[in-house]
């Protein structure tokens, strides 16, 4: 099996390494992914698509609607895939924008089968999107996406900036990339905005973002492309079987914090490169194995023959943080 250190890093990859080097190796160097998709990832992705489409319609006058395209499968059989058609639409029409967002959410959720014990079914996610726009009405929630140097509005902004370290094989600078939900003017400043769907919003929900590397990395990346951010506005929507709730947190990122994040990130990537050169990825065997409902690789790690588990319940899919597409490795 050919393995290669990733050319592009992001907060997910670096976070995986920090929690457990073996988890990073299996998931992002060997690219093992579970065959069955996580309901949290799928439902969260559909919700994010709904928000993106609604915001683009409202602030940029671009309506994105789902269309089915006929394709040939890798086996040569006729098949279908969902693509998105872009058309112009009236600016500032909240009802239309919400409707387009709702259509996008349902299309993105597709025919995914939600587990019985999960609250994140298609209808509950649709309800969550309606609740979100009732709580944070488009154009009337105090946040307006900034206009980027390209003239586009700051909805779903991507960046990929070089780090000071080189790739061990290609010699190219390693890139650090990210994608924000929104960069918006808010309360006299410019803030990043991130939407989180969750099962519950406890008393400590808002405190977890103050040192979160994901947001510090976004501030570093946007600073590099000439868009300094004061911090982040994080909006959480809890989706339970019987009700919704929301909380909003504001977290700041002064320059000294961004500098410390960069120093820490470089030190972490140097550790990753050292492990890659040594070919040894230390398993942590501790709290990370059970955090967030349990590590994906818990079962392979509990087996003396992890390859049996990997070959049966996993497949190799390479995720590109730049194109945001996954490619199945045959």
């Amino acid at each position, binding site marked *: 099996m050919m393995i290669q250190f990733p050319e592009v890093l992001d907060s997910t990859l670096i976070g995986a390494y920090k929690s457990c080097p073996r988890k990073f190796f299996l998931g992002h160097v060997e690219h093992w992914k579970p065959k069955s998709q996580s309901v949290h990832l799928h439902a969260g992705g559909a919700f994010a698509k709904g928000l993106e489409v609604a915001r683009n319609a409202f602030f940029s006058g671009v309506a994105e*609607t*789902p*269309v*089915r*395209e006929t394709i040939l499968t890798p086996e040569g059989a006729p098949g279908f895939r*969902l693509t998105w058609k872009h058309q112009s639409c009236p600016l500032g029409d909240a*009802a*239309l924008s*919400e*409707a*387009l967002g*709702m*259509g996008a959410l*349902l*299309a993105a*959720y*597709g*025919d995914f089968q939600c587990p019985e014990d999960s609250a994140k*079914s*298609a*209808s*509950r996610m*649709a*309800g969550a999107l*309606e*609740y979100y726009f*009732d709580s944070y009405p488009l154009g009337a929630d105090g946040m307006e996406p900034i206009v980027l140097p390209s003239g586009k509005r700051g909805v779903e902004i991507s960046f990929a900036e070089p780090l000071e370290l080189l790739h061990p094989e290609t010699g190219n600078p390693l890139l650090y990339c990210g994608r924000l939900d929104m960069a918006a003017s808010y309360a006299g400043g410019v803030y990043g905005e991130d939407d989180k769907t969750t099962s519950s919003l406890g008393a400590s929900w808002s405190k977890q973002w103050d040192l979160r590397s994901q947001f510090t990395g976004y501030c570093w990346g946007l600073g590099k492309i000439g868009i300094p951010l004061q911090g982040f506005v994080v909006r959480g929507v809890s989706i339970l079987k019987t009700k919704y709730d929301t909380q909003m947190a504001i977290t700041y990122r002064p320059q000294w914090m961004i500098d410390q994040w960069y120093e820490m990130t470089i030190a972490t990537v140097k550790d990753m490169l050292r492990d890659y050169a040594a070919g040894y990825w230390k398993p942590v065997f501790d709290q990370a194995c059970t955090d967030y409902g349990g590590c994906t690789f818990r079962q392979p790690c509990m087996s003396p023959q992890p390859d049996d588990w990997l070959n049966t319940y996993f497949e190799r899919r390479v995720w590109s943080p730049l194109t945001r597409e996954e490619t199945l490795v045959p």
Partner: protein
Amino acid sequence: MSPDIASQISTWRAKAAEGELSVEDMRKVVELIRGDRKTAATSISEKAKKVRAKKEIKSADDMLSELGL
């Protein structure tokens, strides 16, 4: 969410996956979900008021008779 609306959403979801959901359908989804949520919220609020009212109203005669007066 009422079972009727959840079932209706399943139909729209299938249409969306086929790329056949019209903008009018999309508007209807939002309207129905919003209406259902607001109705549920009002109904819960009214139930709570009724419970409170039952507790608050007490007959003075009953209270006096309980004391044997």
